[in-house]
């Protein structure tokens, strides 16, 4: 997270932190593991009032940023989510809100309004099941049939699909990448819940069998969604990485505290050089994760030319080093670190989940290699 927030950003951080501490303390999160939604509707609605879903939405549509850098503002909330391993589809919901505001036009204003009020949830149906789960692969078809679009294909994992009123579905028409806003009660949609590593986040497989929606359901241009999809990916990655950094910070702080309090052979763990040096390594990874997450957020916000590369770098680095940091925190704790009773797994789950969503570190490294290769050619 940024070393310095402006006054308004600090208000958002403080309000989100206080609300989450109050509503979802660790015992509540443990209890929510058996809840089908992972949170109650009131929780999300009150969060929406704090700005969780409106920061990326333009002012004319009822949203607005607080600092002029909306995505940076949103990372402040995302970071607090990570710090507490809080429930809620923050990335998916914001991706849809941003897309509807930027490209949705008049047709989707009512849905956008409901999202901002927290009355309904919308999620992004983008990733597909293996072997079509590689970053950027889309095989779901959008076929034009008169005044209608017909969707066929499978999306998985789709976050909070079971709770969502709408899905923003990324598919492929003859004309090219296309996005359609589909109500989840449309005939032909089957939603099957999946198991997941996280205690409160929920994912499903969503099957589209000849689902028919009017042409007005298209978000943006038919066949012209490629740029918007890339933008959505960047937004999702920024939110996920900011959240992971929050979870890394909490796990690190917990483990440092443990190292001071836990005595073996008459001395604290923190006095063993072998462990001190590993804490130093973890500290360097943690600060580096803060730094690259903030840099990526600022670049996407400013739509700078290196944004696509920076989000991939943030995802590759935080995915790898974040999960290594968490596993090393587990190791430092010993047996208690792999129990349900201890809090550490809450943050381990969040970092591990975020590592696997929207492209693994290895997939992002391939994307980065493509960028570096062309950088070199340009300067040669």
């Amino acid at each position, binding site marked *: 997270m940024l*070393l310095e927030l402006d006054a308004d950003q600090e208000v958002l951080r403080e309000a989100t932190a206080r609300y989450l501490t109050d509503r979802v303390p660790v015992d509540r999160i443990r209890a929510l593991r058996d809840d089908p939604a992972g949170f109650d509707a009131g929780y999300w609605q009150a969060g929406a009032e704090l700005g969780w879903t409106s920061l990326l939405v333009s002012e004319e549509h009822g949203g607005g940023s607080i600092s002029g850098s909306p995505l940076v503002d949103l990372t402040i909330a995302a970071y607090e989510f990570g710090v507490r391993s809080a429930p809620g589809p923050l990335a998916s919901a914001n991706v849809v809100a941003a897309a509807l505001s930027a490209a949705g036009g008049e047709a989707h204003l009512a849905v956008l309004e409901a999202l901002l009020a927290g009355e309904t949830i919308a999620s992004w149906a983008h990733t597909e099941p293996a072997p079509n789960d590689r970053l950027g692969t889309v095989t779901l078809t959008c076929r034009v049939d008169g005044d209608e679009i017909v969707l066929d294909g499978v999306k998985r994992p789709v976050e909070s699909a079971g709770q969502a009123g709408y899905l923003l579905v990324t598919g492929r028409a003859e004309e090219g990448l296309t996005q359609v806003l589909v109500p989840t009660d449309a005939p032909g949609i089957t939603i099957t819940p999946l198991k997941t590593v996280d205690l409160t986040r929920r994912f499903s497989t969503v099957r589209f069998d000849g689902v028919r929606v009017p042409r007005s359901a298209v978000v943006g241009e038919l066949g012209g969604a490629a740029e918007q999809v890339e933008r959505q990916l960047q937004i999702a990655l920024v939110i996920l990485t900011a959240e992971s950094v929050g979870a890394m910070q909490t796990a690190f702080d917990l483990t440092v505290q443990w190292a001071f309090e836990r005595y073996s052979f008459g001395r604290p763990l923190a006095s063993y*050089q072998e462990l001190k*040096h590993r804490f130093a390594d973890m500290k*360097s990874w943690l*600060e580096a994760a803060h730094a*690259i997450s903030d840099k990526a957020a600022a670049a996407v916000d400013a739509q700078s030319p290196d944004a696509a590369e920076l989000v991939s770098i943030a995802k590759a680095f935080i995915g790898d080093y974040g999960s290594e940091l968490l596993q090393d925190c587990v190791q430092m704790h010993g047996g208690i670190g792999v129990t349900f009773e201890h809090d550490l797994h809450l943050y381990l789950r969040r970092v591990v989940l975020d590592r696997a969503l929207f492209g693994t570190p290895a997939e992002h490294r391939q994307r980065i290699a493509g960028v*570096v290769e062309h950088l*070199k050619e340009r300067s040669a």
Partner: protein
Amino acid sequence: MSTGATGGSAATASDIEDVESFRLRARNWIRSNLAPLSADALVGVMRASHSDEEELASIARQREIQRMFFDAGFAGICFPKEYGGQGLTPEHQAAFSEEISGYEYPSEIQAPTFSPCAAVLLDFGTEEQKRQHIPAILKGEELWMQFLSEPSAGSDVAAALTTAVRDGDDWILNGSKIWTTGAWWSDWGLVLARTNWDVPKHRGLTVFILPIHQDGIEVNRIEMLNGNKEFCQEFITDVRVPDSDRVGNVDDGWTVGTRWMFHERMLHNSPLVTIPKGGARGSIRAAHLVEIARDAGRLDDPLARDLIGEGRTLDVVTHALQERIAVGLRSGRIPDQSAAVGRLFTGVVAARTTTLAFEIAGGTGAAWEDADGATAECGNDYLLRQVSCIGGGTTEMARNVVSERVLGMPREQALDRGVAFRDVPRGGSSRR
């Protein structure tokens, strides 16, 4: 303690040039006065690619460029005006460092001349010392070396055995210093010496300055395992140093030394140095990994591309981390020992990146010819891989600093604490 270099008190907002107009002026000047860097100028780990004549010519050119900086008003951007600097802000220096990226610059002068040597003079030097040396440094007339490490003490620099004994208004120095880069073409040394053997090690040290080329100082060049000879060792025999060339108080050299090493760790974050955005020499960069993959015929190989992606990731993350540390140190939001976090990360990343290059090079890493292009020499780079984790203070020392000074963990047990240095156990090779 204050330093005129980083306090920014010399200039107020109203009487200094704004950063953007300074940047434009710097850009125009750089483009019309400096040559673009050749693509391979920054490649490899301490490669033994220069003859002595070429190295001397390069140093002469660097002195010349520094003089051009001085005449054009770009030398010592954050140095106080009264010593020939520009009295500008770290933001001005950052703009200059960005603009000079891709052009020749006085790379050998930045460390250790500007930081830590000139930085230590600014912090602790007498008025006469500053007036004599800072302008000369800014004009490229004086290149400085740190006479810090000794053959008997690498990480434990406070265990220095080089001795200074008072003789009237002078001091007589004897001992040996090591790991000075290019002492054979440098002018002045900043020396940490022992002035009292009867107190614990940190309390019996004093800092001096001396001209390197004088009777009584023998400079030997050290050959690295790949044939590179840029490091030197000096043998100091009965060298007379006037008391006016003492820096800081007698027996208080560790106060100076602590700050000295702080400046050394700060190097990439220091507003006193010009290091182009995109990095200093002596490291392998992601763009070079692409060249290696291309020349190895592996640019389309997903395994090679994974390694390139990793190299680029670590590269960009390192820069982001250094920026964060610089901002945090300036605003006081992070502990002032946090530069060690950057030193640790940078060292480990550079070593990893050298491994990536060696891996991409494949069999050519083991046996090559010059016609192999970028894949040639990757094997020698790999042999010297650990240099990035040793030079400038080992990563182990950085880990001690991070865990003890940043995270507040208990200090390592030391058997020399509270013991007169004379009585501290020493290995056979360093007995006095």
